[in-house]
């Protein structure tokens, strides 16, 4: 079994990178526990890759520090950081065989040939590629190449595994199975890992915690569940999944729950005390909503009904024009489509627990 030397925690404090006057990364402070997998998620250009490359030592931070296991490594050169990294384009050495690629890191550590051989074989069998050891990378499929890259990264028993959109170049199905495979290996070896992705599903599937970045800053940090069901801002709520936003005023408390009168009509309750602001923005996930022809809940008009396999998406407009979306599961071949049709006036309702107040920005 390939084992990690010793899982270490990773921390950045005030990590900042300026390219000219662009603040690509702006004062990022974060602690990642030993053995934890964290996904950096955010729109293009928000500084994910730059952050990862500063951890690797490929870019020098303008300000701030990187600490591994409490040791400051900000000025440690790349090749002494003992890091494993997966690149989007795999970055396998095209002139070396699969086995030689995997052996590279061990050779750089001055390990004896006799010791390298079994280690390489072990790492390759871990990613189920033992049979292809003698091939050149060009004779492998994309998925196989990334598995070789994974073997090459973990065989050196890295203190940290970095992944920069590792599955970006693979097709959907392969990506799903690789997500599970990489995650399993990472957990089995207990390696601390940081992954960059702009695929929200990938982040939710693979990471213990998700870090949402925006314009070089941390927007929200939390478990996938926290990020999804308790987003702090409109930005996070709409970046992860799809979300409805309703404007309203807090008109009082009832049983400890703030009551909100919606601008679109109707009244809803928030699950937890909101900070004393009067105007609130409430987010509701489309899958929490049920629709009915009876007058119960918030009235809306159906604009479009789209069949999407596992669910039917019903696009609506509330009475003040706010767009509103519901995902209705397609169960037991019960065609949602036949129950409603475009132009119908219907009533949307959902549990107060699905309401979540978010900040405007």
């Amino acid at each position, binding site marked *: 079994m390939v084992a990690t030397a010793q899982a270490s925690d990773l921390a950045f404090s005030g990590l900042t990178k300026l390219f000219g006057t662009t603040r690509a990364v702006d004062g990022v402070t974060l602690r990642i526990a030993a053995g934890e997998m964290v996904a950096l998620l955010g729109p293009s250009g928000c500084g994910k890759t730059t952050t990862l490359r500063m951890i*690797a*030592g*490929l870019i020098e931070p303008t300000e701030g520090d990187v600490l591994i296991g409490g040791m400051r490594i900000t000025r440690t*050169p*790349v*090749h*002494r*950081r*003992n*890091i*494993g*990294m997966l*690149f989007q*384009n795999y*970055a*396998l*050495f*095209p*002139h*070396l*065989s699969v*086995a*030689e690629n995997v052996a*590279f*890191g061990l050779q*750089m*550590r001055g390990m004896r040939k006799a010791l390298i051989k079994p280690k390489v074989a072990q790492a390759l069998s871990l990613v189920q590629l033992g049979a292809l*050891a*003698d091939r*050149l990378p060009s004779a492998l499929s994309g998925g196989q190449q990334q598995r070789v890259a994974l073997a*090459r990264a973990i065989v*050196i028993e890295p203190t940290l595994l970095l992944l920069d959109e590792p599955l970006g170049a693979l097709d959907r199905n392969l990506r799903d199975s690789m997500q599970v495979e990489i995650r399993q290996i990472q957990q089995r070896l207990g390696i601390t890992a940081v992954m960059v992705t702009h695929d929200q599903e990938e982040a939710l599937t693979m990471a213990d915690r998700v870090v949402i970045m925006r314009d070089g800053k941390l927007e929200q940090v939390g478990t996938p569940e926290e990020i999804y069901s308790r987003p702090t801002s409109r930005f996070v709520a709409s970046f992860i999944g799809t979300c409805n936003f309703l404007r309203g005023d807090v008109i009082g408390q009832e049983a400890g729950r703030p009551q909100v009168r919606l601008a679109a009509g109707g009244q809803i309750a928030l699950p937890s005390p909101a900070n004393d602001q009067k105007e609130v923005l409430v987010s509701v996930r489309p899958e929490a909503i049920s629709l009915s022809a009876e007058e119960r809940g918030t009235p809306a008009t159906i604009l479009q009904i789209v069949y999407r396999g596992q669910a039917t998406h019903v696009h609506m407009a509330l009475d003040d024009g706010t767009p509103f979306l519901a995902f209705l599961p397609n169960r037991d071949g019960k065609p949602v489509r036949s129950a409603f049709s475009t132009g119908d006036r219907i009533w949307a309702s959902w549990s107060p627990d699905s309401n979540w107040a978010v900040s405007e920005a």
Partner: protein
Amino acid sequence: MTSRPLPRSVVGLALLLPALIFLVVFLVLPSVILLSYGVLTQSQGGDISLPLTMGSYERLVVSETYRRVVLLTLRVALVTSLFTALLAYPAAMVIAYGKPIFSRITMILVVAPLVVSVIVRTYGWQLMLNNSPTGVLNWMLHALGTGPTPVRVLYTEWATVIASVHVFLPLMVLPLSASLGRINPSLNEAARILGAPAWRAFLRVTLPLSLPGLVAGVTIVFSLTAGSYVTPQMLGGTRGLMLGVLLEQQINTSFDWPMAAAIAGVMVVIALAANVGVGWLAERHALVRAQRSGAR
């Protein structure tokens, strides 16, 4: 009546024909005539005719003097290729990986010697390398305080090497930077992250992957140096006598056309061998690697 389009091969041949005729008349034919002189006999009167003889080639190999010139030519070409390659790597890396502004400036500096006429350039080197204390090199060495005796570089093979490196540098840098530019930059990063210091990453990854450019550059520089005339003629002197100069002497001084043709024959063989040989070496290297990885 509909006319059928001509087969592609016929069209292709028709388009090729003018160039083909030009090459046959002005390259192939003269070459054959010249090379045939090498195996013919020259009479006292200067006429070149039968019988066939390998006498001229034999003298080139057997005669101590001629053999020295052949070896010196090969040595100068080899040393020039070596130094050019060593100087070319850093320049090519700046061009391939540097900031656009540095990349441009380096490119211009490297290509500059090509736009100066060979005569002007070589006179320049005569001034630079002059053996008297007033030569620029000796004057600088003296100013730096390196002993009283001037170094003697002009009229030796080293003067030829220096001037050849200067002018052939761009022909090495261009294919090399193209080759380096085609290497995926994350490969070097991957090597560094896997624990390779910069120099080991260069030796294990960048160098082998830039071999195609190196092969192209060495082939060009080696053949051009081995076949050069003006530079060794003006800078090499008698101690740096190379085949090109010897050939000219055979025609203009000794009026020995068969000998000159034999020398030309040897020079063609050297150029061909360089072209085939360097490529073959590189390919064999790749093959050995592939086999080794196969055997593991």
